[in-house]
């Protein structure tokens, strides 16, 4: 191929041309990400070293760190949000695994069509899918009025009220289809002859599943789990819509620091803590994704 290049060019010239092209191509997107993504995160990091509220006196200090560390209510909320995300991600995996299994092993030629059917609602509006649950849940919501109407209950059921449960149900609804994708990808790559071999060697199907299928699908399970856990940990829109007072999450309190309390330094620390917690999971996610791609 290189022999086809114009012979007058020296290697150094070719390298310079290549560099110029690369710069022109990567410059704009690189600059955009730098200026509007990395720099804001950096400034946010600097903001944590300030104290005071917006508009008032601001000084460089570690006070905000101290107040964050002293604020056990914040830490408890962070812990509770972690549990909500954990619960959501686990439920998503449990709900999505059988779907992925069915599609990979039982659905035959229609598997891609069926997969698309499952995933289409997930690709539509995120906000509207949460909004739908706001209308469904609640004491005068569609679910309660439906149950009252058909006579299954005679007063609004408390479980359907705005609560942490409502947040989990809504988040599971929103995220479960996305979990089916990586698990399906992992199951679909399994060499079916392995299972035949297990059967030939006298293993009952459930044992083959536990010893062959399940371990081989774990990268997909991990990728699916993290693809829910990472974004939901900072979630604030779902609790805002369906959570009520008892359903608020850490993300709501971050939002509060910027919108109502105007304590930007504290909000910055809270965001930073979130990012630091998520970083190892982000790296793990890339690793599981690599395993799936290979």
């Amino acid at each position: 191929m290189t022999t086809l290049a114009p012979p007058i060019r020296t290697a150094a010239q070719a390298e310079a041309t290549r560099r110029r092209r690369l710069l022109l191509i990567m410059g704009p997107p690189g600059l955009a990400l730098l200026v509007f993504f990395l720099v804001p995160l950096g400034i946010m990091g600097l903001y944590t070293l300030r104290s005071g509220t917006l508009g008032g006196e601001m000084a460089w200090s570690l006070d905000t760190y101290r107040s964050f560390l002293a604020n056990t209510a914040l830490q408890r909320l962070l812990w509770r949000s972690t549990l909500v995300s954990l619960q959501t991600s686990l439920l998503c995996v449990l709900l999505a695994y059988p779907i992925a299994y069915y599609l990979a092993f039982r659905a035959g030629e229609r598997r891609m069509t069926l997969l698309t059917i499952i995933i289409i609602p997930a690709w539509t509006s995120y906000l509207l899918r949460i909004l739908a649950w706001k209308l469904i849940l609640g004491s005068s919501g569609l679910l309660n009025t439906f149950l009252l109407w058909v006579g299954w209950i005679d007063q609004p059921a408390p479980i359907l009220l705005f609560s942490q449960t409502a947040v989990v149900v809504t988040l599971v609804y929103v995220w479960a289809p996305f979990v089916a994708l990586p698990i399906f990808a992992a199951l679909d790559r399994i060499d079916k002859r392995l299972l035949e071999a297990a059967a030939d060697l006298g293993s009952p199907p459930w044992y083959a599943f536990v010893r062959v299928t399940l371990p081989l699908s774990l990268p997909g399970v991990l990728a699916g789990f993290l693809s829910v856990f990472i974004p939901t940990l900072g979630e604030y829109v779902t609790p805002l819509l369906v959570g009520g007072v008892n359903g608020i999450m850490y993300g709501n309190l971050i939002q509060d620091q910027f919108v109502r309390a105007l304590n930007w330094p504290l909000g910055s620390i809270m965001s930073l803590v979130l990012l630091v917690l998520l970083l190892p999971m982000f790296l793990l996610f890339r690793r599981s994704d690599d395993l799936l791609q290979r």
Partner: protein
Amino acid sequence: MLAKSSIGRRFTFSLGAAYFVLFTAFMYLPILLLVVFSFNDSPTLAFPWNGFTLRWYAALAQSTELIKAVWNSVLVGLLSSLIATVLGTLAALGIVRFNFPGKSIFLSVAAMPLVIPAVVMGVAMLILFTMVGIPLTLWTVGLGHVIINLPYAMLIVAARLAGFEAHIEEAAMDLGANYWGALWRVTLPMSMPALVAAFLSSFTTSFDEFAVTFFLAGSDTTLPIYLFSQLRFPSRLPLVVTLAAIMMLLSVLIVLAVEKLRRMST
């Protein structure tokens, strides 16, 4: 052959199939409820169904605030998706066709907007704009949407570019095109389905984006911001549902188009 492909094997009832049907119902029912209740002739949103009406649709068309919000969302969506697609395409060219130091760092950074919590992205950009003194308007919203969509656009186009070899560009150059001409006249047309898919999926995301937009919109309203503000008034709920039904159907149509284009392009 014919028997096999026409109706296919009969739908064998199994536990798996039953579960699949249940799961699908779980996914579609809430959306269907939105659509069904947009036609319900009742000022409250509750069972039982009270008869068919189009009056909520008629009422929507009269709300000037709403029309303004729709227009804002369309403008922001078109412009930010266009920029995200252009930047994403450039980034895709860079990562597929070139090797350079720091490539894996770039990939990590470019993938971060995909997974970073929206609230963090929103507040970080809010801090930047406030510090530099840029007022919060539709422009800042658009900038936020560009960053959100750039990674998606990059991944969609990169998948397409990886599908055909750089030799095609080299062949064009051997035939006398310069490098940029080869990109413009050969690579770009060949990637067109992916570019359109990237644009459309950026547009749907932008049209629907609330979590980051909330921090960047100032006093301007986009459609999701408007929708959210209406939720405080119970009397406006039927209108919200109607609006949601329309947005949902549009969103499904665009998603189907994107899916078709992506199939075509890879």
